[in-house]
């Protein structure tokens, strides 16, 4: 190691680096949405498990959905999952860079396709569950 490297100053990076600027906080929030995504999937798995345990066990589980704590947890989860959805679709134009000749397909159009698909899928699922 030369003299220059020996005297160079290395600034330490604190583990709270992401609190220093808003873009980093928003990034960390986006990453943390994955916890709520996994949490809800576990909830769905439990729901399916209760289906295998008979009408009574399942019925109790569904009744518990009406409790204030369940509703509150659902709202928090929905907020985080929506943040995941929005950040996910907004990033699609960075991955899907498409060209028509020299012109790049506008970013809003690429993201718009995903948002539209999302609305369509949601409506289809809602109709299926409501009308099943």
């Amino acid at each position, binding site marked *: 190691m030369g003299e220059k*490297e020996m005297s*160079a100053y290395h600034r330490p990076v604190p583990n709270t680096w992401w609190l*220093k*600027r808003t873009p980093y906080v928003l*990034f960390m929030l986006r990453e943390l949405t994955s916890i709520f995504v996994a949490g809800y999937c576990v909830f769905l798995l439990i729901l399916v498990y209760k289906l295998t345990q008979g009408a009574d066990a399942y019925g109790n589980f569904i009744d518990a959905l009406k409790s204030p704590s369940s509703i509150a947890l659902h709202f928090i989860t929905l907020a985080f999952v929506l943040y995941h959805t929005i950040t996910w679709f907004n990033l699609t134009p*960075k991955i899907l860079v498409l060209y028509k*000749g020299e012109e790049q397909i506008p970013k809003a159009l690429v993201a718009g396709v995903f948002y539209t698909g999302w609305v369509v899928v949601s409506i289809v699922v809602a109709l299926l569950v409501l009308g099943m």
Partner: protein
Amino acid sequence: MAETIKLEIFRYRPEKESEPTFLTYEVPFLEDWVVLDAINHIKDEIDGTLSYRWSCQMGVCGSCGVMINGVPKLSCAAFLKDYYPDKIRVEPLTGFPVERDLISQIDDFMTKLTKIQPYIIRKRGEEKPLDEGEYLQTPAELARFKPYSMCINCMLCYAACPVYALDSTFIGPAAIALGQRYNMDSRDHGRSARQELIASHEGIWECTFVGECSAVCPKDVDPAAAIQRAKVSSTVDWFKDVLIPWGKKK
């Protein structure tokens, strides 16, 4: 009474201190001055010992990158009036060792730029002799890689990248964007040669798509997009290698 503005500047003089300090300087506030003008004023009129990099003063050379209030910026592109009357804090770019004052050691960056093989690589036997003329390229083919060719090597993207700050083995945004500049050039056949570096653990796979690299880039290179697109193409390659192992290897 002429208006003034204060600059709080990171000082590090290895020959006399083992820890950096911040010194505050009061400079004239002029509407059309940028931070570089203020720093030049300090150097010329107040404290000649201040060390920093600069050159073109117009955002094309990439020399004057610094942290301004914690955000990586070209000091020639940051106007005093956007901060006035608040104090402006100036530090060397994050993620790099500090040699002196505002000067970072950029050897790691320079090494990575060369390792990515930033030149046209042709397949064996497909090099045209000079007297056969140029390789022709349509405007559409140029458009594919042009943004990635606009990089001025200012390293603001490295300073914005938390992955690089935490682990300097990460190849980094500019190097990968430069690799993609050649990968997407219709005249180039060198993608698989560059993949050893790009598709390695220290390459694209350390990136967590924070996206700040693209946000701070003064030339709209969009290295974040370059990296994510490389993830897609590298993943396709990987599946091809795994599912079609008898396929021809380039």
